[in-house]
């Protein structure tokens, strides 16, 4: 095991070094699917964060009890329970958002970020650290969704969070709200992320 990081570093790594979307390529499906509007992106991010944080807590607190052979199965049940809670909550109190996100909220259950974090981190670390890690990862995920959805909403509808930002001179790029635009924007963003990474690395050497 690598030397323990400081709490701050543990949190910050999720933002960039181990950003789930840009660096680890995890949770791509929701990232692509729900980012056609900022509000959806944020809602999705929050829902995922909720599940991630709570399941990390639970997993790290009962990690000693779980035999490794049923590890995954147990995690899945735990995660699924929290997802159900999130899904029901949205459906009950924010029906429009729930509708817009469609099946992607239930799909948090198979989001690789969550299971991956349980496997890689919570099952091996203390409750506190797992919490920090989950917080970091969630923040990273939310930021990624926010970035992607802002670009898509701005170019696709000329608005941000539903407020028309660009004037009438702007002709909205419908493609940005459609699947093709999602793929292409994320592809380009990934390229930019790697470019920044290699530049900063080159400087630090």
């Amino acid at each position, binding site marked *: 095991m690598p030397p323990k990081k400081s709490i701050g570093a543990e949190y910050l790594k999720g933002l960039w070094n181990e950003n789930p979307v840009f660096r680890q390529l995890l949770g791509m499906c929701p990232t692509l699917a729900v980012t056609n509007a900022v509000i959806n992106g944020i809602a999705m991010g929050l829902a995922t964060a909720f599940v991630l944080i709570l399941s990390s807590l639970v997993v790290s607190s009962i990690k000693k009890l779980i035999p490794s052979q*049923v590890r995954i*199965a147990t995690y899945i049940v*735990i995660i699924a*329970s929290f997802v*159900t809670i999130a899904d*029901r909550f949205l459906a009950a109190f924010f*029906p429009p958002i729930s509708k817009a996100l469609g099946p992607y909220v239930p799909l948090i259950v198979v989001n690789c970020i969550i299971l991956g974090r349980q496997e890689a981190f919570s099952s091996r670390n203390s409750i506190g650290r797992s919490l920090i890690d989950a917080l970091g990862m969630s923040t990273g995920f939310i930021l990624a969704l926010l970035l992607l959805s802002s670009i898509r909403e701005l170019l696709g*509808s000329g608005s941000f969070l539903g407020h028309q930002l660009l004037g009438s001179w702007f002709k909205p790029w419908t493609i940005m709200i459609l699947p093709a635009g999602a793929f292409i924007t994320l592809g380009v963003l990934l390229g930019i992320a790697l470019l920044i990474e290699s530049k900063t690395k080159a400087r630090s050497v």
Partner: protein
Amino acid sequence: MNLSARMIVVLTAVGLISGSFLSVVGLLTKERIAMNQQLEIQNAISEVLPSTKTSHKVFEDESLTIYESRDENDNPVGFAVYASGTGFQDIITLMYGIDPSFSKIKALTILEQKETPGLGAKITDKTSFLRYWEGRNCEQPLSLRKPAVESPGNLAPSEVNAITGATISSEKVLDIVNLSLERLKEIKQKGQLSSEEKNAT
């Protein structure tokens, strides 16, 4: 404890615990969610039949649901038809109100659609598309007017306006309405509209 026993116990226990949690959550939210759905239908009904006071389901099958609606005085206002079909991309779900004699469409509203934003999605646009549906004569199947005209007055009684650049979506909406109208008339002839279950919804 032997390993497999432990596996079984742990997983079962986790299942039990989460089951109990979820049952609580489920019960707590069940009503609210059901209510949300009801509310949506009711809003739609009052949108297509504005003078509705009460309404109840009189017919339901896979692709069609029909509500009868009455005003304050319990006079029939008409029927609200909830129908769906494929659009340009995916399913379009809509509701329209029709007078009791099945001669005029009162109004149309789109409940769900995934058409192209800025294009097919204009079928939800009140000013450019839905407005032209109000008061259409539907004794005959409706037809599409293309290219579009400026005001509803220029349309023939059973014509509706197409959306420029999204003829297909417009056509699909038309198809859904025409098909359901046909079925509506059929159902009425068979006398299935007089509903037994009068539980107001």
